[in-house]
């Protein structure tokens, strides 16, 4: 090697390939990837598949008062899975650098909730799910709200604990035939109070999460 070779300028780095989609879409996609949304969708599909298998192979009571036991666990589980996507791997740096973050959080939470409902409904189509899509959607909405609120305290990675705790409690409420609207998983599909409570919890959780975002410290310490 000679000095001339060292002095000669190296070849210019190749220009980055131009992204074929608008920057907003790319931003959303990168945000979703950082939250492991594709993996979450896969996990939701697993939840839906398990529910379908249970309906097909008779792992649950198909009719009667206890027919909601198994679907409730899966629907609550799906909500617990989707709130994991609230965790940010970037923490404080992202909060200070991105002014679009609240909108991305809002969009992601709404999209994931919709996807959870859609995927589960797709999986159980034609399998006579007790309560139908109304109860399933109400359960996913309400439990997601609990998870979003929980993520403000525990962080996204541990936000599954409280939703699962609520589902365990709802199982007891189902066995005891509770009628309080805040035990919405055990109420009939058209119960107005149950819908109100579930939507209220989801709305509060969504608003709080949009504004503040999930906590990062506790989950990182765990």
């Amino acid at each position, binding site marked *: 090697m000679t000095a001339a070779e060292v002095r000669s300028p190296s070849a210019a780095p190749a220009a980055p390939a131009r992204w074929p989609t608008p920057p907003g879409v790319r931003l959303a996609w990168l945000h979703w990837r950082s939250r*492991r949304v594709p*993996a*979450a969708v896969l*996990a939701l599909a*697993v*939840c839906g598949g*398990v529910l379908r298998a*249970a309906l097909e192979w008779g*792992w*649950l*009571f198909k009719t009667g008062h206890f027919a909601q*036991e*198994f679907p409730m*666990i*899966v629907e609550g*589980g799906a909500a*617990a*899975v989707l709130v*994991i996507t609230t*965790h940010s791997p970037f923490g404080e740096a992202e909060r200070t650098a991105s002014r679009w973050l609240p909108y991305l959080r809002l969009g992601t939470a709404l999209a994931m909730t919709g996807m959870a409902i859609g995927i589960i409904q797709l999986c159980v189509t034609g399998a006579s799910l007790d309560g139908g899509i109304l109860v399933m959607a109400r359960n996913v909405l309400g439990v997601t709200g609990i998870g979003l609120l929980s993520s403000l305290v*525990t962080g996204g*990675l*541990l936000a*599954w*604990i*409280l939703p*699962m*705790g609520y*589902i*365990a*409690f709802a*199982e*007891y409420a189902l066995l005891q035939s509770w009628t309080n609207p805040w035990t919405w998983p055990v109420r009939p599909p058209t119960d107005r109070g149950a819908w109100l409570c579930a939507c209220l919890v989801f709305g509060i959780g969504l608003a709080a999460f949009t504004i503040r975002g999930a906590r990062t410290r*506790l989950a990182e*310490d*765990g």
Partner: protein
Amino acid sequence: MTAVALSRPARVLRIEIRRSVVLWSVPLLAALFFFDSFRTVSGFAPVWTVRSSVLTTNMIEDFGPFAAGLAAWVASREGRRKTGDLLAATSRPAWARQLCALGATLFWLLATYLACVAAVYIDTALQATWGGPPLWPIAVGVVEVVTFAVIGFTVGALFPGRFTAPLAAIGGFLLAFIGYHAALGVQPGMSTYALLSPSTAVPLGDAGVFYHVAPDLAIAQVMFMGGITVGLLGLLTLAPVFRVSYRGLLAGISRAGRWLCVAGVALLAAGVAAAATAFALAGTAKPGVSGWDIPALHDAASDQPVPYTPDCAGIALPVCVQPAFSAFLPAAAAALQPAAAELKGLPGAPVRAELVSDGNGTRNTQGMLFAGMPKPGVSGAPPVYNFNSDNGMAPLWGSPAGTDNAGWRAGFQQVFLSAFVAGPPQAGADILTPAQQAVVTALMTAIGSPAPQFDEAFTGNGQVVGGATQAQIAAAAQRFGSLSPAARHAWLAAHLTALRAGTLTLNQLP
């Protein structure tokens, strides 16, 4: 030097315990225990075996999923943070770190579980009038919690990721539910493998009272769950070997340590053997006098009745119960005295009422009936009214304070009078004829109780057994009840045999 060397793992364990994430979940587990398990058990009769069943049903459903999820969270820590390479250079092997993390997780889970067990047992001890705390349910419950945790830990260690913990928790939830669903469907003569389920049915109200509960099933469950646990620990020990490619297998064994590999294989083999043996044993289970018996594990001596001195109360009709049900005795005796006074002097009138075994090994829904067990009703010489704790209308179930009401008393009296009017119990003769119903109704009214309901007289399509409507029965009962006590008594004395034989019609009642 030795002391210092021994204290190091203990120090690591102490650090893990102090910073364990399970500690944050203890309030949630305690709240779930209170709302679900403790409130449920408070509704059970204060009988040790019945109350201790919550340790392996509700409490496992509360603890199991969280044990699996939290253990998976702890185990996936290194993989989640991608610190595997960093920690590989430390002086301690991977299994030592994992063992400490698992130990800390189990420490908090078991401490919480045992504290909840203590709460259940203390509450039971304050109310129970006979017997002592059974220990097998504690052993089964502890092993089940450990198994859930080890399953979650293994999943977390092998597949680290942010979704592993919630999916492990959901899996634990569903596993407990599917097992419970399968266990409820177990019937004699069919496959009995589902008895190994972590959650099983609540036993009958007098389980362990008249006969000892054989530990056969508990032994099989501990062996099965313990086998799974030991096998998974072996799998965890061998995990570093699995991570290398086939060509590097020998290098992997060398790196993990030859003796460690031998230990891992031994643990895996022992676990699989124990679980398989327990599975095979569960398949041979058959209903016994107090639960399920497994012939290979069964001790015939445990089938002997438990000796006891009955508690009795009542003057017109002594009512005797097993001491475990002493708290129900005042209500039972008070309910039967006026009814017995109405029957006094009649042929076949009972001279004593006695609580007998339910005669079922497990829940009625499993359809188990044992030949030779006394059936509720009036029988024997001198006649004795045998009743059981699983009486559908007035069961000796729940808090004894709940029996202090008119509805319970009326139910108890109706069953007693129906048993007397129907005569000695016979198979398939549980439905009273219209004339028998009218007489029972009249006697109930005479002692100041509300008119009974005989819903069982109706068939599914609304037709009435015996060709009489409820209105006709009520009219006949009113007619019979309007007689003077002496006339009613005399008529019953003269026509009791025909009444019991079912040959009397409503029109033949005075």
